[in-house]
Each structure stands twice: as structure tokens, then as C-alpha cells.
């Protein structure tokens, strides 16, 4: 669901970034403060900013140019009230309007320049941002691919995807728009203050006195608004979650006549969303009227105090024109302050997002400790020497596993579920590193081999097969990108997958949806077997590969798997007696320990664990 949202958000963001009317301007027009989901506050602001600046530094001349034009435009813009005050003093109060047009034209000219500058600066900034974002995104993804599996276990797939999509979006917003507006607001504020004080310092002091009030209020309301929208987002996500889950599971609901069972849960969340949505709108709605009110209040106070000063002291300390000028400036004062207040939050979010992305970029790469030994092909001699392994420190998963396999042998691993069978094969291709001990292939520790080459030479058919979105062809081709179409089809035939693929409406061009959900588990496994066959590995690992395929298909692929296993060292986790009996060696693993090993016959003779297992499962 989040994908759909991000797309829509992207649309909105692009618009916001380049559509001047959607951004705050000193003249008015509030931007809705509606950021995406907010994460925790940034921990190390200055380090993150430094790093962001380093990226920006690549474009320092363009940025310098933007800053300069912005300063010029802002000052020109700020001249307008001064021009008004001149017009008032020189023309209106003298009832001589002959020169007033020049002032009107000057104001129009300034507006034109201002518009041009805003336009080019925004455009340049968006362009720079696009480049930086692209760079960051690619760096992050490259690191992600190189990070060890344990990193994925630790962070979770959702979090990692969110860092590259949502958090990078946050940086995008901050860089593309917030930074610019922040700078712009600052320039305006300084400009207004300087010009105001030149007109009349006493009145200006009064205006400055309002800063804390404005800031306090704006920061308070934006916080509330942000919280409101965040709450709305949370409830929307929760509701979408309920919708998604229940529509996915609606068949179950129908199968068991449970309609209405989840309606309550839905209505409750829907109600919460309604309230949250209203509160968010409410707080967002307060800000603008209040600013309008404060704006006029300041205006009124300036004029009132100005009038009093004019009557009691008079020119040259104060003129009607300077009162009008300061009152005009006071109107321009409130927007940048309010923007600063609001943008501060957005900026912080961008920094927090950047921090999370940088954290990912700094993640360990499993290739940092890559071996150097190149691999052409393995002969397939395998040895586990005192292998110890645990995912976390408390629970030992493998304890002191020792065994050897000669090239071309078939090793069957048996034992109860959760005993460590799967883990035994997971450490073989270095998805996880050992706590102690060594695994040797062809006499060399697997750590000394080049890792991706090592993995390419070891074929795995996992229990939970992952297929990629794309065509059936692409999925099989994934096993070897150099393979020709004929080779791909040959692999599919060998795996027994060709028959059902040929019956699909688009054959090899049939699309596989996310996670391969449009194929049955058996078909998914057939495709993944074909993929592994194409890869033509030297070592083969089958993890209950055929347990979900119906009997006929099972019989069919069994034959081809046997051909495949023939000249390769194969390790199979299987429940099928046939495989186990054919094995050159059977490893019985329970509670992380290798408790028995030997051939079927020798193990039966021992009358140990394997014997009981055999009696229970097969002899009945």
C-alpha cells in the first residue's frame, strides 16, 4: 500500500517543489504542512548536516549563484514599502500625483525580477537536488545489496525499503524546497529589519517585540498540526492495513461465514481516522486566520503608536511616510517568521531521514572481508570441522558439527523440525559466518574464496522460493545471465517445468506477480529448480525442494534431479525415504548437534535415533 501512497506523494512533491504558487511567499498563501510519516528525531544533527553539505558542495557555484540572486531579489522586493512611503510623502500628501506612475512601474519591475529569480533559483535547486538524490539513492542501494543477511534479519525488509524510498523522499523535500525557503525567509527577515530600522527605529522595536509571540504560537501550532497529520497518517495506515488484510483474506471470511466479524475493528479505526483527520484540519485551519489576525494587530499597533509619536514628537523624528513604511514592513515580517517556525520542523525531518539513509550507507559490507581465492569449478569435496553457529548469543543453533563429503556424494540431512537442518546448509554459502570451526571446500576454508563466486558454484533450492516480478523466462534466466534462450528452455525441461509453462497463455513471457503468487507452490519450486539447473552449480543444496509438488510432478522431477545430483556433491534435506536411502551418508541432526551419521543400513543397525525416526515415519 505504501507504494501507491508514495507515488501519489511524489506527484504532490514534484508539484510543490516547482510550483511557485504552492510554496510560501512573503505576500501570503500558506503551504499545508503535511509531511510524510515522521520518524524519530535526528540524533546527530551536525554530523548529518556536514555530510549533506558535502553533497551540496559538489554544486557550490550553482548554489552560490542562487543565494546571490535571492539576496538581490529579496532586497528589491523589500524596497516596495519604501517606495510606498516615498509615494505617500512626495505625492499624496502634496496632492501632486504626476510622478506616481514611475513608482507603480518600478513596483511592477521589481515584481517581475523577483518572479524571475524565484523561478530560476527553484529550478536550479530542484535540478541539483535530483542529482544529489540520485547519487545518494544509488549509494544506499549498492550498500544494501552488499550488506550481510544478518543485517536484513536485524533491520527487517520493510525498514530497509522505507529508508531508500520514504527517507530519501524526506531528504528530497528538504533539499529541494525547505532549504531554499529557509534561506529565503532568513534573507527577507534580515532585509526587513534593516530597512525598517532605517525608516524609524522606535516603531521597528515594537515590531521586533512581536517576534517571540509569533514564534511561540507558530511553533506550537505547527507542532500540533504536524502531530495531527502524523496521527492521521498513522490511522490511515492502520485502516489501510485492516482493509488490505481483510480484502486479501476475504475469501476466508466468506468460507467460514464470518462477515461482520471484522467490521467492528474497521469501524473503530475508521472513526479514529475521522477524528484524527478533523483535528489535523482543525489545527492546520487555525494557523492562517491567526497569522492574519496578528498581522493586522501589529499593523494597528504600529499605526497607533506611530500616530501618537507623530502627534507628540512629530517630524523629523517621525513622518507619516515612515509610519506607513514601517507598517508595510511589519506585514512582511510575519510570513518569514512563521515560515521559519514551520520549516524548522520539515528541515529536522529531512535531517532525520538523511541520518537513517547515511546509517544504511555506513552499514557493513560482507565484501569487506572477501576472500581472494578465485574459483573455476569445485571438485566438490566438503568438510565441516567443529562448526559452531548461533544467530544470537543466547541460543546455540549448531554445536560442533563435523562431517566430510567426497566429490559427487549425496548427503541426506534428517532430523526433527527446528533441529538445525536448514541452518547447516545456510552457513555453507556464507549467508552467516561461523562462531567457531571451519567449512572446507576442496580443502580450502570457504572464507578464503571470493564470496560471490563461491555462492555461484553452490546451488540452492530453498523451501520458501522467491520468484522475482518479471516473466517466467527472466526468472529462470536469473540463474545465469549468459545463458541463451535454448539453454533456458532446456533447463526448464530438465526441471520438469517446461510442460506447465508451455500451457500458460504467454508461455515463457507470462508475468510472475510479486512473490510469484500467481503460481502454485509446486510451480514456483519447479521454476526455481530450473533456475538452479541453469546455474549449473558444483554443489547442490535441496531444502525439501519437492515436498509441495503433487505426486505425478514429484515423480517426474525426481528423475531429473537425480541426473542433476549425479556428478555433484549434493546435500538434501528431505523427508522422502527414497532420497535418504540412496544417500552416501545420512546426517541426523537434532538440537543443533550431529548425533548420528552413516548409511541407511548402518544407522538402522545402530538402533538409535535414526532407527526410531525410520520406524515412526516410514515403516508404518
Amino acid at each position, binding site marked *: 500500500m505504501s507504494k501507491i501512497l508514495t507515488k501519489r506523494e511524489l506527484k504532490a512533491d514534484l508539484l510543490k517543489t516547482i510550483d511557485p*504558487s504552492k510554496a510560501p511567499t512573503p505576500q501570503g498563501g500558506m503551504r499545508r504542512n503535511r509531511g510524510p510519516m515522521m520518524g524519530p528525531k535526528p540524533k546527530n544533527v551536525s554530523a548529518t548536516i556536514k555530510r549533506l553539505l558535502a553533497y551540496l558542495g559538489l554544486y557550490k557555484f550553482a548554489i552560490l549563484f542562487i543565494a546571490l540572486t535571492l539576496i538581490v531579489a529579496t532586497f528589491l522586493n523589500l524596497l516596495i514599502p519604501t517606495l510606498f512611503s516615498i509615494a505617500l510623502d512626495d505625492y499624496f500628501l502634496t496632492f501632486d500625483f504626476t510622478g506616481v506612475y514611475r513608482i507603480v512601474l518600478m513596483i511592477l519591475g521589481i*515584481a517581475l525580477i523577483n518572479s*524571475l529569480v524565484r523561478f530560476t533559483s527553484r529550478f536550479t535547486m530542484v535540478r541539483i537536488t535530483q542529482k544529489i538524490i540520485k547519487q545518494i539513492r544509488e549509494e544506499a542501494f549498492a550498500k544494501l545489496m552488499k550488506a550481510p543477511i544478518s543485517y536484513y534479519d536485524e533491520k527487517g525488509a520493510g525498514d530497509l525499503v522505507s529508508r531508500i524510498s520514504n527517507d530519501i523522499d524526506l531528504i528530497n523535500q528538504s533539499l529541494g524546497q525547505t532549504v531554499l525557503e529557509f534561506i529565503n525567509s532568513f534573507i527577507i527577515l534580515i532585509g526587513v529589519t534593516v530597512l525598517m530600522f532605517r525608516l524609524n527605529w522606535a516603531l521597528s522595536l515594537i515590531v521586533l517585540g512581536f517576534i517571540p509571540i509569533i514564534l511561540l504560537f507558530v511553533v506550537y501550532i505547527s507542532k500540533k498540526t504536524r502531530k495531527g497529520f502524523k496521527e492521521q497518517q498513522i490511522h490511515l495506515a492502520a485502516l489501510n492495513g485492516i482493509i*488490505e488484510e481483510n480484502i486479501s483474506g476475504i475469501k476466508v471470511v466468506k468460507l467460514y461465514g464470518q462477515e461482520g466479524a471484522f467490521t467492528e475493528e474497521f469501524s473503530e479505526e475508521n472513526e479514529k481516522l475521522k477524528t484524527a483527520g478533523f483535528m489535523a484540519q482543525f489545527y492546520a485551519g487555525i494557523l492562517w486566520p*491567526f497569522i492574519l489576525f496578528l498581522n493586522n494587530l501589529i499593523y494597528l499597533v504600529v499605526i497607533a503608536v506611530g500616530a501618537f509619536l507623530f502627534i507628540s514628537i512629530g517630524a523629523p523624528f517621525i513622518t507619516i511616510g515612515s509610519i506607513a513604511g514601517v507598517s508595510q514592513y511589519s506585514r512582511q515580517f510575519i510570513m518569514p517568521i512563521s515560515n521559519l517556525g514551520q520549516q524548522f520542523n520539515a528541515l529536522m525531518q529531512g535531517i532525520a531521514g538523511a541520518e537513517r539513509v547515511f546509517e544504511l550507507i555506513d552499514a557493513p559490507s560482507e565484501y569487506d572481508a572477501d576472500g581472494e581465492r578465485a574459483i573455476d569449478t569445485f571438485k566438490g569435496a566438503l568438510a565441516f570441522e567443529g562448526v559452531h553457529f548461533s544467530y544470537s548469543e543466547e541460543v546455540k543453533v549448531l554445536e560442533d558439527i563435523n562431517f566430510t563429503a567426497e566429490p559427487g556424494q549425496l548427503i541426506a540431512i534428517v532430523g526433527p*523440525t527446528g533441529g538445525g537442518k536448514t541452518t547447516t546448509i545456510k552457513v555453507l554459502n556464507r549467508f552467516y559466518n561461523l562462531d567457531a570451526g571451519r567449512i572446507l571446500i576442496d580443502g580450502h576454508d570457504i572464507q578464503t574464496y571470493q564470496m560471490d563466486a563461491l555462492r555461484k558454484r553452490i546451488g540452492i533450492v530453498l523451501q520458501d522460493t522467491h520468484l522475482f516480478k518479471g516473466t517466467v523466462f527472466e526468472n529462470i534466466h*536469473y540463474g545465469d545471465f549468459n545463458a541463451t534462450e535454448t539453454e533456458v528452455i532446456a533447463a526448464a525441461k530438465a526441471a520438469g517445468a517446461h510442460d506447465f509453462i508451455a500451457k500458460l497463455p504467454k508461455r515463457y513471457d507470462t508475468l510472475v506477480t510479486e512473490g510469484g503468487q500467481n503460481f502454485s507452490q509446486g510451480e514456483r519450486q519447479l521454476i526455481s529448480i530450473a533456475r538452479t539447473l541453469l546455474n549449473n552449480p558444483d554443489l547442490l543444496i535441496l531444502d525439501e525442494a519437492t515436498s509441495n509438488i503433487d505426486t505425478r510432478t514429484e515423480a517426474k522431477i525426481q528423475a531429473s534431479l537425480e541426473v542433476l545430483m549425479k556428478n555433484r556433491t549434493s546435500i538434501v534435506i528431505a523427508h522422502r525415504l527414497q532420497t535418504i536411502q540412496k544417500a552416501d551418508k545420512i546426517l541426523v541432526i537434532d538440537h543443533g548437534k550431529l548425533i548420528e551419521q552413516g548409511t541407511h543400513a548402518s544407522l538402522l543397525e545402530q538402533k538409535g535415533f535414526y532407527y526410531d525416526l525410520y520406524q515412526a515415519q516410514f515403516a508404518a
Partner: protein
Amino acid sequence: MKQINRFTKWMKGSFHLYLGGLFIIFLLQYFRTLPPLFVQHIIDYVFGVEPSNLPGFMQRWLLADTVQQQLILVAVVSVLFTLIRVVMIFAQRVLLAKFTEQVAYGLRNTLYKHLQNLSYHYHTNAETGDLIQRVTTDVDTYRMFVGEQFVEVARMTFLLIFASYQMLQMNVTMTFISLIIAPIIFTIAFVYFMNVKRIFTEVEEAEGKMTTTLQEGVTGIRVVKAFGNERHEIEKFRNDSEIFRNQSYRLVKLMAFFWGGTDALIFAQYALTASFGIYFVVQGTLGTGQFIAFLALLGLIVWPIRQLGRIIGDFGKTVVALKRIDEIMDQSSEHEGDSDFAPTLQGNITFEGVSFHFEDDPNHLLKNISFDVKAGETVAIIGRTGSGKSTLISLLIRLLEHQEGRILIDGHPIETINKKALRKQIGLILQEPFLYSKTVAENIRIMHREADQQTIHSAARLARLHDDIVNFEEGYETLVGERGVTLSGGQKQRLAIARMLLKDKPVLVFDDSLSAVDTETDRQIREALSDTWRDTTVFIITHRITTAMEADRIIVIDQGQVVQQGSHDELIKAEGLYQSLWEIQSQVMDETLKEGEDA
């Protein structure tokens, strides 16, 4: 009229809020056109000698003897007006927010409830993702339309009307001059935004493609690494990222061109108004104040006209969204007109010459099926994939309605029994069960929400799942799915079984639901069941002979017909499908036995 109804029918019940909000907006827009007139009043009337263009009643409020007094009055009145505006803006926002949220709330509730009542067949054919989008994104599109887009259009229309009115009041020729470019800008904006959508879609697609690569790379990381394909993925992502960047840049350039171009047009309008204005002022046909008021009024309307073009160009999206919503609402509920008869079932099931085919497909999936099952019997239904085994069960729980013959449960024709009551009493266990991302306990409790802890535990024990669960860190409170533990195929199936065992059911159906459970556990579960669930009619749908052979009776189905019926011992002796299946499947066992003897 139908179109309008499509837009308004969801607003019922809170429409008065909308009307109130829109009325306040109407007044507010009038007030917005007054400040330029205050300026005109001061310059032309207070300082000058020309008449004021303020409305009569306001002029009366501003009457005073001296210039100073008049100025003070203008200031006071304008500030007062601003205060009124502040209150009105606030009230309008609250009204509209309340309205919008209420409408969205109602729409979501109605839609969600309706979806649940649509037939199983509908849901089988509908794409889940599409349905989800209709309830979420399409509803949100409508919410945005009601709460923002339509309001914006109303606001701008009112403003345009009042601004034109104030201009006309001052000077007719100048009004036309000042509004001459507006329609051009509007047209350009409209055409532009209609066309730029295509590019938006392309950018979205490019981003979608990139996100897919990202997501697939992450979820499939084990496969990526297993084949050592990291570099390939990185290259692919870089490619996608490049395309996405290029597409967005193209969009940005187009946007820049549009905003820059229309900016230029707007300034051209300003220049036109200013030059003619100056000319008229010099001629004496236009007051200085009027001239400035014209520029100010122009500024009020000329900038937002571009937005108007965009929003109106966007209306089509809402029409489409509403159409998609209506498509769901137009489907009739499968429970409409359903029987109220809800007997407690015993489990005697009779099929009499039952045939079935889908409406749009004349090929019969089931032909002339007849059999009779007594309560408490265990019946295996065996057949190849696609033979019609599962269709049979769909007919039994009325997910599909048979066309010919009769299905009787305890002698009642199945159509006379309330659907929900029927489905609640027939426990169907699927091969790939659906689990909610809730806790294990909640997932078991789904079919019987008031079940207590003890019941849940004993059901889990029966399904041989209890030992697995207590090994989880948080036991029964462990979350299932993405945020929690991933259950293995076998654990999922056993959980699905546990669900069904919470409460006595007259009929249980195992739809190939022990396929991922190992043979030993499979046997244990079946034994446990036959001990405790003696009176329950059990259907076992399978292609595994070993699972079927222990049943009281085996029904062999092939190409939609019952081809054989009988016990295992009878069937292996008779020539037919069962025998040949038996031969294929027992080959493996024979071999092993022989080898075992040799050793």
C-alpha cells in the same frame, strides 16, 4: 443528472455543513475585494475629489469631517473587517473539515461492509490490489475533491465574479482590458495540465519500476546472494534510477516552461493594465485610486487562474474514482434474500446427480455427481489436479451454486439453509491458509472469537502445533507475519487446522491441507481427530494415496465425474484410476522396502 447524483449521493446527512461552509466562502470572497476599494476610497475620495467606489452602506460608516478622522475610520473599519474575516475563515475551515471527514468516513464504512457481502466468486475474480485501491485511494481521491478541489473552484469562481463586479463598477473598458489575458491563461493551464498527466504517469511508472527493483532486491536478497548477482541488481537499480531521474527532469523542465511562460503572460497583463490605466488617468477618465485598485484586484484573480485550470483538468480523476466505487456498490450482496433457516447440522450429506458449470463457460466442471455420506464417516476424495475435487467442496458450502441435481444436508436441500449458518458449521481447511498479521492466539481464535485460552491450547495440541508455539519467544502472543515470526508451510497448515478444532463441527473438510506436514505429524493429527471427533463427517481431499487409504470410503474423481467409489482394499483390486495412482505412488515405497530387506 446521474453524474451529479454520483457526486452528491455520498454527501447525504451532512450536506448542510457543506452548504454552510460554501456560503461563508462566498461572503469571504466578497470581503476580499474590499481592501482595494478602501485604497481607492482614500486616494480618490478622501484625498481627491472623485466619488468613492465603496458600497453605499460602507461609505456612510466612513463619513467624517476631517481627512484625519476619515483616515482613522477607514483604518478601524478595515481592521474590523479583517477580524470578521479571521472568524469566518476559521468557521469555514471547521465546517468543511467536519463535512469532509464525515463523508469519507461514511463512504469507507459503506464500501467496506458491502465488499464483505459480495460473493466468493466475485472475490475470486477480482484483483485484491485493485479492490484495496478502490477502498483507499479512490475514496481519498473523492475526499480530496470534496474537501479541497471543489472548494477551491468555488472560491475562485466567487472571487472572479466579485472582482469583475468591482472592476465593472469602476470602469467598463478597463475591466475588459484587465481580464483579456485571463481566459488565455486559463485555457493554457487547462490544456497543459490535461497533457502533462501523461508525463506524470511516465514518471510514476519509472518510479514504480525503480521501487519494484528495490523491493524485489530486498525481499529476494537471499536469492540475489545465492546466485552472486549483487552487481547485476545494483546495475539494474542504477539504470532505473537514471531513467526515473531523466523522466522527472523532463517533467521539471515542462513545469518550468509552463510556470515561466504563464508568469510572463501575467506580467504582460499587468503591463497592459498599467499602460492603459496610466493613459486613462492622464486623460482624466480614471481616478488614480481606481487605477491602483484595478492593479490590486487584478493581482487577486490573475495568479490563481492557473490553479483553476489545473483543478478542473483534474476533475476527470474524481469521475473515474467514483465510477470505480460505484462498480462495487452496483454488485448485489450474496446474502440478499438468503433463507433464515439455520438448523444445527448432523453431517449427513447427499449429492444427487449434481452438475456444475460456470455461467460463461458451457464446459461442465462436475457432471452427475452422486454419493451419500453418513454422519461420522470419513471420506477421501482423490483425483488429479483439476479433476473437480475443490469445486465439489465449493458447492457444498455454497460458494458456487450447482445447476442440476440436489445437494441435501440432513435431508434439507442446501439452498434452504442460511449461507452463513452453513459455512460456520462446515470447517474447511485450506492448503495455503490465510493468516492475519495478528498474534498466534488471535489467528486461532478467528473462527470463534470468544474461545478461552484453554480451548485454544487444546485445539493447538490436537493440531500438533502447541509445542511449536510454546517454543516461540512470546508463545501464543507471538505476532505472525511480516512484523513477527514467519511460520513454515506446515505450521501454517497446522494453525489452520487448530482454528477449526476450537468448537465441535458436524463437518470438517481437509482440502489438501496436510501437504506440507510431514507424514508422521500427518498421521498423529488424523489419529487424534478420529479419537476425539468421532461424530464429525470428515472429507479429505488429496492426491496422496497414503492419506486417502485409511478413510472409510474413497471417492475417485476424474474429469468432473465420480469414476470409482469404495474402500482402499476394494479399489486397488479393481482396474481403474485408483489402481494406477496406487501403482505409481507405491513404487517408491516398494523400492525402499526391498532395499531395506536387502540390507
